[in-house]
């Protein structure tokens, strides 16, 4: 077709390689810079932030992911907000709150100047509506379980029914059928003037107004049965007394009016819990409990979050939304604290590809990236720069074991596999993570005693394995083998991702080296994996991870509160549950922590999991972004963030997370 001489082709190729070589030189020019990429303060006051994956929905009660959560924190507000550094609850729409003596009932006093973005004022009724809507079974809200501490919340959400006698209009009570908890919380105990429920405080010398609903809350709990007939029949079959009692009665579905939430007056909200929950206020900062506008939701239904209709109540309001591209918000002048909001707007960029995120950051197109945006391979390049955020995270990684099937149902076998892993070496590779003992993350909860765990001990592991009936033999060349172990009954399953694979291969090589067992590896696509694991449909070992829903050890310990849901191991122990309940009933923080730690020690000794590591946050922000702290949950109250234009005041390095009372703008008087 055409003739190119050999010489010309060679020259062409050489030129090409030259171009490539110069490109590589350019890439290494980054080496000596103080920050990762270009640093130039934007001329306007609009922050550009990579929020994570594309938000599924703008309804704070429907979407439970972190990417959406960051956007919701700009648009919506609830009773309380996260503190920027510690993530403890600080007042938001609630100015202050009172707690009863065993943390089973809370009264919130709302500020009077809170408004929606369309000017309407906010009252306690809005909270009642929001909570009822969130728990409605038709909504299929995935985070509804967070509200399970509220009276009748679980029953309502799962469509349970009460049993009513149509003639007397009396409901069957729990206490008559032995389904009641052993200790009744104060919120259920009859109201009496003799033993005041609340500590007296200067601000509120007399307890709040009593109402008929309140009386009802302080009476014995009604019996609830599953709404679905098949499960109901199964339960009735087991309890003949109950079966007899329901004859002739009608089943009344648990309704929203049965929830333990009451608007005592326009600016007072009372919440009644089903048991002692001292950390409850911290739970309320979650997006699920942020207000949704009743009028708009009722008018537009599913479409209420459409930018044309949406009404919000946070420091920012919606400006525009181009899905998969940008969600822009701007300052809301109707917000009660708008005077203290420093940014004029935020542009959220949804993105999930890490290199792209970091490239955008490097070039200066965004001001901060979301947590875990940095690929582990790049960490060495990034962590020594002054814009890298290093802090522990309230998230843990562990290995779950299927304790329902042999050979993993033998605790000695489980101990053996744990002791045979050299986790320190694994941590060295991961570089920035911290150790994990038990299930609660290391170094997050001040004053929480860590459980005692056995350190890496390969010899002990082999001994335990032998004791369990699978002797480990030493081969002549120094390696080990364990032929009697049913290796076909175990494998390590994990969701497909390169770093997971490397970790999996490391565990495999460790077990092979110290126990002589080559555990097969199986990788699964993420959704399939979660599905299989929750059904306990895995052999032996599986990858596990959990992030805190609120800042309290209980959010991790509660994983094993029931045998189902996110337990994934099949292990359950009544003593563990009792310890947890007792802890929650205890108003003294130190004592409570001690009891929780006891429960955790029980967990460690029973070993349904192998603890691996506590995660650390892993993101970068430009030095001129202030007010944004690498807190343990990576959730940022946007109203405190601003651009600092004075170079000398920039953040050089990770800003300190030490609580600084002068930082907080609002006055907080807690009931305790």
């Amino acid at each position, binding site marked *: 077709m055409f003739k190119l001489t050999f010489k*010309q082709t060679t020259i*062409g190729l050489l030129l090409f390689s030259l171009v490539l070589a110069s490109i590589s030189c350019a890439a290494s020019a980054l080496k000596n810079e103080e920050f990762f990429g270009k640093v130039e303060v934007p001329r306007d006051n609009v922050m550009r932030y990579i929020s994570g994956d594309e938000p599924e929905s703008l309804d704070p009660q429907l979407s439970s992911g972190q990417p959406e959560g960051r956007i919701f924190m700009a648009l919506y507000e609830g009773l309380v907000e996260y503190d920027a550094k510690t993530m403890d609850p600080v007042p938001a729409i609630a100015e202050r709150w009172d707690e009863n003596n065993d943390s089973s009932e809370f009264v919130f006093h709302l500020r009077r100047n809170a408004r929606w973005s369309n000017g309407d004022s906010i009252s306690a009724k809005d909270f009642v509506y929001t909570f009822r809507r969130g728990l409605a079974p038709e909504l299929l809200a995935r985070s509804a379980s967070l509200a399970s501490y509220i009276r009748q919340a679980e029953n309502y959400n799962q469509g349970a029914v009460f049993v009513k006698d149509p003639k007397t209009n009396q409901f069957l009570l729990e206490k008559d059928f032995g389904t009641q908890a052993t200790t009744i919380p104060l919120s259920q105990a009859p109201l009496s003037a003799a033993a005041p429920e609340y500590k007296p405080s200067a601000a509120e010398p007399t307890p709040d107004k009593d109402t008929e609903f309140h009386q009802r809350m302080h009476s014995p709990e009604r019996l609830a049965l599953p709404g679905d007939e098949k499960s109901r029949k199964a339960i009735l079959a087991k309890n003949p007394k109950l079966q007899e009692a329901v004859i002739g009665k009608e089943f009344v579905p648990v309704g929203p009016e049965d929830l333990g939430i009451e608007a005592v007056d326009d600016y007072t909200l009372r919440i009644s819990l089903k048991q002692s929950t001292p950390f409850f206020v911290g739970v309320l900062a979650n997006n699920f409990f942020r207000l949704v506008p009743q009028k708009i939701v009722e008018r537009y239904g599913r479409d209420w979050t459409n930018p044309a209709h949406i009404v919000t109540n946070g420091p920012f309001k919606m400006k525009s939304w181009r899905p998969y591209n940008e969600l822009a918000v701007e300052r809301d002048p109707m917000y009660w604290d708008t005077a203290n909001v420093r940014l004029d707007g935020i542009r959220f960029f949804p993105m999930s590809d890490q290199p792209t995120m970091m490239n955008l950051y490097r070039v200066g197109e965004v001001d901060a990236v979301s947590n875990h945006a940095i690929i582990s391979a790049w960490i060495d390049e990034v962590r020594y720069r002054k814009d890298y955020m290093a802090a522990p995270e309230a998230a843990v990684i562990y290995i779950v074991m299927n304790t329902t099937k042999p050979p993993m149902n033998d605790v000695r076998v489980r101990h053996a596999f744990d002791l045979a892993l050299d986790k320190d070496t694994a941590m060295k590779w991961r570089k920035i993570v911290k150790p994990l003992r038990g299930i609660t993350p290391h170094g997050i909860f001040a004053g929480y005693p860590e459980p005692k765990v056995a350190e890496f001990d390969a010899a002990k592991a082999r001994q335990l394995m032998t004791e369990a009936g699978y002797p480990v033999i030493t081969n002549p060349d120094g390696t080990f083998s364990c032929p009697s172990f049913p290796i076909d009954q175990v494998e390590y399953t994990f969701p497909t991702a390169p770093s997971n694979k490397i970790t999996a291969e490391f565990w495999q090589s460790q077990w092979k080296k110290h126990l002589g067992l080559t555990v097969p590896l199986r990788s699964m696509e993420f959704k399939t994996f979660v599905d299989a694991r929750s059904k306990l449909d895995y052999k032996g070992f599986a990858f596990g991870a959990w992030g805190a829903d609120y800042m309290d050890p209980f959010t991790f310990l509660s994983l094993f509160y029931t045998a*189902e849901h996110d337990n994934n191991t099949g292990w359950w122990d009544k003593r563990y549950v009792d310890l947890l309940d007792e802890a929650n009933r205890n108003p003294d923080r130190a004592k409570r922590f001690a009891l929780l730690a006891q429960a955790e020690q029980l967990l460690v000794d029973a070993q349904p999991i192998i603890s691996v590591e506590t995660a650390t946050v892993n993101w970068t922000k430009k030095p001129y972004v202030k007010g944004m702290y690498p807190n343990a949950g990576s959730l940022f109250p946007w109203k405190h963030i601003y651009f600092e234009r004075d170079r000398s005041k920039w953040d050089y390095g990770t800003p300190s997370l030490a609580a600084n009372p002068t930082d907080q703008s609002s006055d907080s008087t807690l009931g305790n």
Partner: protein
Amino acid sequence: MLRFIIRRLLITIPTILVVITLTWGLIKLAPGNFYTNERAIPRQLRQRIKEKYGYDKPWYVQYARTIWPIIRHQDFGISLKYQGQPVSTIIARSLPVSASVGLLAYLLALLVGITVGSIAALKQNSRWDYASMALAMLGISIPNFVLGPLLVLGFSLTLYWLPPARWDGFFSRNTILPVLTLSAIYMAYIARLTRAGMLEVLRSDYIRTARSKGLRERDVVIRHALRAGLMPVVSFTGPALAFLLTGTVVVEKIFALPGLGNYFIQASLNRDEPLIIGIVAFIAITLLLMNLLVDIAYAYLDPRIRY
């Protein structure tokens, strides 16, 4: 000609239905579901989700529920992952991004490719010919997902001239790199095809006649040679469109563009059934129509062809 067009249009409908059914079948056979995510969902909730979307019904019922609204109202349903957003809205919103990038890339490729190829044909065996054809060969051999990041490395990460990703509207700096990346391979192909086609035509009798009639070289080329010489380019457009589609997917992934390709990949990974089916059907229709247009253009260019 008209009958040809009508026949082709008629055959489009059953073809689309076949495509939809195939896709639907593939999705149904696969394990996993759109509602599995990090938090294990309580059994009752999962059951209710199943009921709500009809996954507990037998397969033929599910098929009917999918296909009937499509036939009747062209209603592809609502995305499962992006709550409350109808599939048609999603397509309508992401289409302009993909279409504008793709179209601009192809137009650029046509412009550059035809020009370079024609000159190469006219100046056959000259240095220009060799150089441009070697460059064209390079363009065909370097995959777009290698070229794209190389361009990003050069123009964005090193020089800080252009953004490395994101879409900021069609008339922004963000459009430049994606369009260049996408059009490179087509520039190369079109240049080669033009050259080959022109060479063949320039040797033919009627061109010699035109020349001996004393017409200016420019007229000879543009009015006579080009028309016939472009035939291979026109027939290339058909398959090129299919490749353009896949090229767009790659480019959208590299540059994080909110286009149809990106949505398609996400939907496939999320098992978002209505969205997958909607996009696949849309692409199939577009391809069929484009192929029809190409065939019509072919007939226009070459009077010998008769349908």
